[in-house]
């Protein structure tokens, strides 16, 4: 039933490796972009707050497929942005990361904002009373505690991100979902097996993430 895997015609590991890389780079990027966004959303500067709010609400409510395809069509094909990529697969890979970061950053931002809400206001007050600047209060006192209580929602975001990488197939990044499309076409007699293989592959990526971060959430929790 699974003999199509032995034919040597499909690079399953390679495809999942691309998925893992997409996930990894997008996760790092979204964490940074999400932190920047939440900084804007809680900043005392009205312009920054307005930008953060508008960005999050627009991008979060746009389908990921639209964001990713827009990256290819608008950025690459119209504005010729290739982010240093060579060849359509490489360009697709890089633009997919850009789209995923732009999209996932909004969810990271909101997860962190809920984390910030768990930090008692007295913590920031005490920090301000010591003479720390807004940025220091945020980076030294509020965000470290917010991150710790946001590990569980961040794990959700990371798992969703892993699975969202499949949308990158739409702009020809050579990740798992694009290989799956190929297999469905050529192995129509083993459809169930093909789907099972990919479902299993994603679980191999996401289950340990969930377990690890669940454990980390308990370890890192701030005792009050």
């Amino acid at each position, binding site marked *: 039933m699974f003999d199509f895997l032995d034919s040597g015609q499909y690079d399953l590991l390679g495809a999942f490796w691309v998925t893992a890389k997409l996930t990894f780079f997008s996760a790092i990027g979204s964490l940074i972009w999400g932190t920047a966004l939440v900084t804007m959303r809680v900043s*005392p500067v009205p312009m920054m707050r307005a930008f953060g709010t508008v960005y999050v609400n627009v991008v979060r409510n746009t389908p990921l497929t639209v964001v990713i395809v827009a990256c290819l069509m608008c950025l690459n094909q119209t504005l010729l942005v290739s982010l240093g990529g060579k060849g359509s697969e490489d360009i697709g890979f890089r633009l997919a990361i850009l789209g995923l970061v732009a999209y996932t950053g909004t969810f990271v931002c909101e997860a962190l904002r809920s984390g910030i809400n768990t930090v*008692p206001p*007295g*913590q920031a*007050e*005490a*920090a*301000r*009373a*010591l*003479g*720390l*600047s807004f940025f*220091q209060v945020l980076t*030294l*006192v509020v965000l*470290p*505690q917010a991150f*710790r209580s946001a590990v569980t929602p961040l794990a959700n975001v990371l798992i969703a991100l892993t699975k969202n990488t499949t949308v990158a197939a739409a702009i020809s990044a050579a990740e798992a979902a694009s290989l799956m499309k190929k297999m469905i076409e050529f192995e129509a007699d083993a459809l169930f097996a093909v789907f099972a293989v990919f479902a299993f592959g994603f679980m191999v990526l996401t289950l340990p993430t969930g377990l690890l971060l669940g454990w980390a959430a308990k370890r890192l929790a*701030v*005792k*009050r």
Partner: protein
Amino acid sequence: MSGVSVSKGPEGATRSADDLVVLSEVNKHFGALHVLQDVDLTITRGEVVVVIGPSGSGKSTLCRTINRLESIDSGTITIDGKPLPAEGKELARLRSDVGMVFQSFNLFAHKTVLENVMLGQIKVRKTEKKAAEAKARALLDRVGVGTQADKYPAQLSGGQQQRVAIARALAMDPKVMLFDEPTSALDPEMINEVLEVMQQLARDGMTMVVVTHEMGFARSAANRVVFMADGRIVEQASPEEFFSNPRSDRAKDFLSKILHH
């Protein structure tokens, strides 16, 4: 006192170089509630001022306006001759000279006791890490929690946490210390250990503004008692005078409720 220059302020009030904190005609509203009404208060260097009064009289708000944790609607507040700046670097610098101790301790929950006392020194005063640690340990010894240095705040009792909070404020070498009901969240048996530290500070000549319900502390440590009610300073006097011979009816009423039962 000799060598003190005395000049006339714009409102005709006498100002001396010994005045550390001066509030003049301070007003503040929370929505429709007028929490501070034309408050004038001058605190001189080395003075211990205890602010008492019924709940909702504005005493905590008064305390919090002094380092601008609460902004004011009108009036002026000057600290060591400088008016309180608006938000920004200047305000941060000023706050570093004003120590604050909160009712709910507010120790940084993700940092150890030692790190709590070192943070301001390193990030605001730019002290070397080693020097900051030495100073932090010395201060923790002074308030009697030296052995708890490597624990996290949640592992300490309330009284210990509050003493750490005092050490954290002292680490900045503040010109004045503000205490906002420092013992109100404590179990009765822990109140004294905190009050003793504050008594010692007062004896060492620290300028202190203390909002409290501890009348014993007011009697023994205060140079002056300020009685507030309904957003106004109703009466101020030395502790002996205030407790034995209050002038206003409001103060008489308040004292009769808390002292006799």
